[in-house]
């Protein structure tokens, strides 16, 4: 009896990752990089300027309008 399609897909990825040589180090670099980008940089250094200062799009629009006309 053939295996469930999802199990086959899982096995495909699982064995692919398991048999990696160079790729394991690359995945480590990717994971560290994503952590630095999305957790450290995004949270501490790159808050969205308009979203963190205003609650509604109307307020954001009014602020930018003010910036463009002063």
């Amino acid at each position, binding site marked *: 009896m053939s295996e469930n399609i999802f199990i086959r897909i899982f096995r*495909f*990825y699982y*064995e*692919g*990752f398991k*048999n*990696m*040589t*160079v*790729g394991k*180090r*690359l*995945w480590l*670099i*990717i994971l560290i*990089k*994503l952590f*630095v*980008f*999305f957790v450290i*940089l*995004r949270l501490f*250094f*790159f*808050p*969205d*300027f*308009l*979203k963190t200062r205003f609650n509604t*799009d109307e307020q*954001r*629009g009014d602020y*930018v*309008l*003010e*910036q*463009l*006309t*002063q």
Partner: protein
Amino acid sequence: MIDSIDLSLVNWSRGQFALTAYYHWLFVPLTLGLSFILAFMETLYVRTGDEKWKSITKFWMTLFGINFAIGVATGIILEFEFGTNWSNYSWFVGDIFGAPLAIEGIMAFFLESTFLAVMFFGWNKISKKWHLASTWLVAIGASLSAVWILVANAWMQHPIGMHFNPETARNEMINFWEILFSPVAVTKVLHTTTSGFVLAAVFVVGISSWYLLKKREILLARRSIMVAAIFGILSSIFLIWTGDESTRQIVHVQPMKLAAIEGLYHGQEGTGLVVIGILSQSEEDPEYENKKDFSFRIEIPKFLSYMAFGRSDAFVPGIIDLIEGNEERGIISSAEKMERGKYAREVLREMKDAKAADDFVSYEARKAKFIDPGFQENYFRYFGYGFIDEPDQLIPNVPLLFYSFHLMVGLGFYFLVFFILAIIMVYRDTLIRRRGFLRLAIWTIPLAYLANLLGWTVAEVGRQPWVIQDLMPTFAAVSRIDAGMVQVTFWLFAAIFTTLAIAEVRIMIKQIKLGPKEGRE
């Protein structure tokens, strides 16, 4: 508020964006081009059944994987910067920038999670043809993914297909297809992706040449050079053609950029194309750093006129014509554009004030102007000029653009000759003895990266002072944040990206030294 912007904030924000964009573009072009070279090599494997082609494909696939892994998500930093450093810009562009970026994100996700995995993990697990199809889909998908960000960039160079909503201060997309198929976008996509193809071809020829110098992996090197050089010749020809095409567009949509990259101050009929030139300080205006004369130049007579307009006697406007205007040629002066821009800003200000004062009659009257085609064409079109105080602000850095452009073009022609020589030597079986050429091939790799970065310098510095051509100057686009914080993140990025670049080079070199015998995944 706009008048009191801290210039160091603008400059640091620009510097940070340039730094991240340059580093991001170190990784992207190799991904774009090498994926197609892999597809060609694997096609040869499937068609011939020769296992050597499989081994060659797997070797280059390992290098592709290293570049992809180190480079993936570096572009996301640019999106962070839009929200933090460039909030006025991000809001003003509205969904025009958001839609292409969202499509790019979705495409990249599906590409990376499906076909890329099949390409790396699928050897001996799926049929040869399915695997080949996956490799081709990775190549096509990578280029398609790049299309969207390039379309968004092209819109900034030539904003069309939108309408400005004065109530929300946002531009709204009214014609997606006009934005997608704008001639500027089509040329930019073709020219930029092809530059990646050329870079990857140089990379493959260069690394293969190293093997030939070391007298190892001879078959891999010869076959790889054959595939890459043919791909490189075709890509170089296409690159030159699309570059020529973009000249025809720039003269209409960004004439100041064309005048600056050619160092053309006074427009004339039958303008020559400067092939090589050295700029020196102008005697006409010795105090003004951005005013230059040629102390030496070699030019092709009347060729710029022909390139730009298809007629050798056509008038090409110079920087002075664009600043002072030229009634005879129908060129509006920058002073006139500034007046019109200030009027458009004034109408917007009056509309805002009328809303605050609950004066709905006045409010509706001002708002109606923004949907009046006459107001759009004659005033809102020059909205960005309303922020400009001095016409000199409208001139980009001429020496930087002139040298960047001419060096880029020179390198583009050099790559074409380089590939032709490589293919002749492979065909005559003399390449392994040409050690000088083999060394040159290795040193051509950094030149290909340099040419790519110069291309972006021309595109982005050339449109200054605009972040959106004629509508928003760069200094009006920045968020009012602390310049010190931008400096901190600038150096943080410099450290992170330099570490990533060093990691890539070290891992690559290690894999190249190991060679193809242990086809890695």
